[in-house]
């Protein structure tokens, strides 16, 4: 992608400098994969490997959850972020899993991510935060913004053309469509979805909000749920996962992307987002780390339905 040529050069230079100077102990970015349409995560600790870094419209992976590998480490790591990725970093900062001293956030302009066929990902069409919500440095002229905004930086024009954010108003369409169904239809729909789950936990592993040291689905001691992928246990897993990230999900869509069984996980997350906004007021998780997530606070005059 020609707009990103200089950004790629700057990324490599910056990564090299940061590693050579010892400013950071490692850098998270992307590399070109085995196919032209694959740009996969890369972690380097050696300045010599900085040239492997690459960033283009296939660099869809959110790298923020990888920072958890170093959560008890004093050394600093640099991470390249798109708008959606940056909210994952804020998630980790707010959840106190990393400290600002441990991470150097480098914001990148996002051209809009596309699939193998070259069409814009739905999550990018629905994107409200195409610019980093926080960054220590930026490349490619991207502007940091804590407000929903239009794409900025060198790829702004390209992003606009492919329609980044053009369908932001329709984010809840899938939720609305399901809400319109009868209880029996919903039950059948979700039973089918839950039955597909193979409990690989890829959704959890990639999620920056799923940052527990020990996940309750890994600890057998308490016996919250059986390991077996039964319909019942899968539903328990799906709902519990959703409740645990309620008000904390940063809307990056990685859970759904990595799901090998195509379970519409984000529909559940979006449903919760929608209800939280309706019940407790507007809130975007992973934007402002000083605002406590909605389930960690209350208003005495919250909606009352339990009278």
């Amino acid at each position, binding site marked *: 992608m020609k707009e990103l040529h200089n950004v790629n050069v700057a990324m490599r230079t910056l990564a090299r400098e940061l590693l050579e100077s010892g400013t950071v102990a490692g850098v998270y970015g992307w590399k070109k994969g085995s196919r032209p349409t694959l740009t996969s995560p890369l972690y380097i600790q050696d300045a010599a490997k900085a040239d492997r870094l690459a960033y283009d419209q296939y660099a869809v992976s959110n790298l923020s959850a990888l920072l958890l590998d170093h*959560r*008890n*480490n004093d050394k600093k790591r640099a991470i390249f972020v798109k708008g959606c990725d940056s909210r994952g970093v804020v998630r980790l900062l707010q*959840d*106190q*899993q990393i400290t600002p001293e441990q991470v150097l956030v480098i914001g990148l302009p996002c051209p809009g991510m596309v699939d193998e066929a070259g069409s814009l990902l739905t999550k990018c069409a629905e994107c409200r935060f195409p610019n980093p919500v926080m960054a220590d440095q930026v490349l490619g002229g991207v502007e940091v913004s804590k407000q929903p905004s239009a794409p900025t930086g060198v790829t702004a024009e390209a992003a606009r053309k492919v329609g980044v954010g053009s369908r932001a108003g329709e984010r809840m369409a899938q939720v609305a469509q399901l809400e319109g169904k009868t209880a029996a239809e919903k039950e059948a729909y979700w039973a089918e979805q839950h039955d597909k789950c193979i409990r690989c936990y890829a959704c959890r592993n990639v999620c920056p909000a799923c*940052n*527990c*040291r*020990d*996940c*309750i689905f890994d*600890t057998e001691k*308490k*016996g*919250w749920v059986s390991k077996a992928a039964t319909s019942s246990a899968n539903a328990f897993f799906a709902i519990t996962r959703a409740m*645990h990230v309620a008000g904390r999900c940063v809307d990056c869509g990685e859970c759904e992307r990595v799901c090998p069984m195509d379970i519409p996980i984000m529909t559940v997350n979006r449903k919760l987002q929608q209800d939280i906004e309706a019940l407790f007021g507007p809130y975007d998780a992973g934007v402002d780390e000083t605002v*406590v997530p909605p*389930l*960690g*606070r209350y208003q005495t005059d919250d909606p009352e339905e339990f009278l």
Partner: protein
Amino acid sequence: MKRIGVFVCHCGSNIAHTVDCKQVADEAAAMPGVVHAQEYKYMCSEPGQVLIQEAVKEHNLDGYVVTACSPRMHETTFRKCAGRCGLNPYMVEQVNIREHCSWVHADKEAGTEKAIDLMRMGVAKVLKNEPLKAATIPMTKRALVIGAGIAGIQAALDIADNGFPVTLLDREHSIGGRMAQIDKTFPTLDCSACILTPKMVEVAQHPNVELMTYAEVESVGGFIGSFDVTIRKKARYVDTKRCTGCGACIQKCPSKVPSEFEMEMGPRKSIYVPFPQAVPNKPVIDAPHCRYLQTGKCGICKKICPTDAIRFDDQDEVVTERFGTIVVATGYQQFDISAYEEYGGGRIPDVITGMHLERLLNASGPTSGKIKRPSDGKEPKNIVFIKCVGSRDEAKNRPYCSKTCCMYVAKQATLLKEKLPASKSYIFYMDVRTGGKNYEEFYRRTQVDYDGHYIRGRVSKIFQVGDRLIVRGDDSLLGRPVEIEADLVVLAAGMDPQHDARELARTLGIAYDAHGWYTEAHPKLKPVETQTGGIFLAGACQGPKDIPDSVAQGSAAAVKASALLTKTELTGEPMIAQCNEAMCSGCGLCVTICPYKAITRQPKQERIHGKMRERMVSTINSGLCQGCGACTVACPSSAMNMGGFSDEQIMAEVDALCQR
């Protein structure tokens, strides 16, 4: 597997009438883990408890379930019973087959079935019970009383008389509070100073009391038993050890400032004591108004002082001291009448407040007790009182009654009539509320013997024409408008919380209501306690109060505080949160949700990948945790659990109920 006993109580016929107790016991005996099941007429009786204790010994029980009445009734009984036979009291569960079963289901079959389910639930739970032990926390045998008005003075005296050291703190440089400003007290009309000053002297001279005036609380750390209180002692510019209180400096000081104590109706000096009977009776320098401190010129006080006590280089001093318990007695402030534009909003000089009139009535006040109105010093003839100014007024966000105004207005009208026999007082009221011993009688005397003219209705407007005040209102009993030409209008301004009450509450970690009054732990049964262990309330900081109520509360708070101080250590609640540090990721979700600030993130040293690393984990202060369990749900990884109501126990109960 644990060896469990089940004891089925008949409660006379209360349970046995509609629950087949034998069947419950039989079903229990057949349950895995249950090694003994038994029925008895009254399990809570002495023989019943002996029966349990013998069974514990005979069958070597690890725990037992009593199916009986509500655990809210006898849980403590059956836990103590276990304690007496060497079993941990928390290895006992009581299930409720009386209130929740036999009394509410007449159908014996359905009742028995439910009782069996509940019994199974109890057994399933007790199988997961762990012995619990209450943590103990040390008690610092020293109390802090914040605020040295009459409530604080009383609290400090009572604590001191109980034999405990107490520090009495006030931000003003004399103790005494609002009561010192008041002229006479209702309903006895004894002079306020005459009954207050002996108490002030008594508390100052008490060997167990340390006075700390001109000082403010900056921060409070710690918890019940060991509060670490940081106090700022404001610079006085006078060495209190050297100063003899001779007053020569005050006399010679050339700079005059309106006196706060006199409601700015009279002057004071820049070096001053607020009022003649002040305790300690040693002046301070008001730095912003001191010529020397502002311009470097003057210094007369220093020159004249016979003991060389003036210290122009004095600095604020910040100290941190430890107290076991705190009594908050910070009082109130008078409502600011500027909110009432229709009454002149404080712009009309002869529209004054009740406290202004107290000072005008007082023989040591700015007019030496002569009633002179502020604008021109004339003696007023027609005096209008308006009650409920800043009370019972939703529009001013003061829906509450200030409780004292009805009586102080009656008192002031009486005193005015005594001082100015030719005067006439008109009193506009909404209701006259005189609940209190001899209060109603006093109010009647004001009306009958002292010519107080009570008019039921609100005043809509006061304005000035020439040197008269036109007071317009309505008489709602006669149903017609009234207009009075007055010489002086007294607004019976209500009580407001101190302007910084919320700030102090947050510092102390205590609750306050929508207006800023401090919230007691229970409106009826815990009137002087707060939700925060070890912190008590006295006086008007909790809500409008008159002097007798404030004194009573001061004594009550002192009893509560002393009860703590008699202990060398405190026993905490055994059923509290427990953090599994190995699982805890230190995210702090539990910290924000804890109502008692009992959880803090603390560093934990740990060997990770062969290196010593530090990571943050949640730590529970067993002295502060009250066992609500909110943290357990906030914690997504279930690292946070709770003794007595653990995840495992509750799940076992659910499973047992459902798997029938």
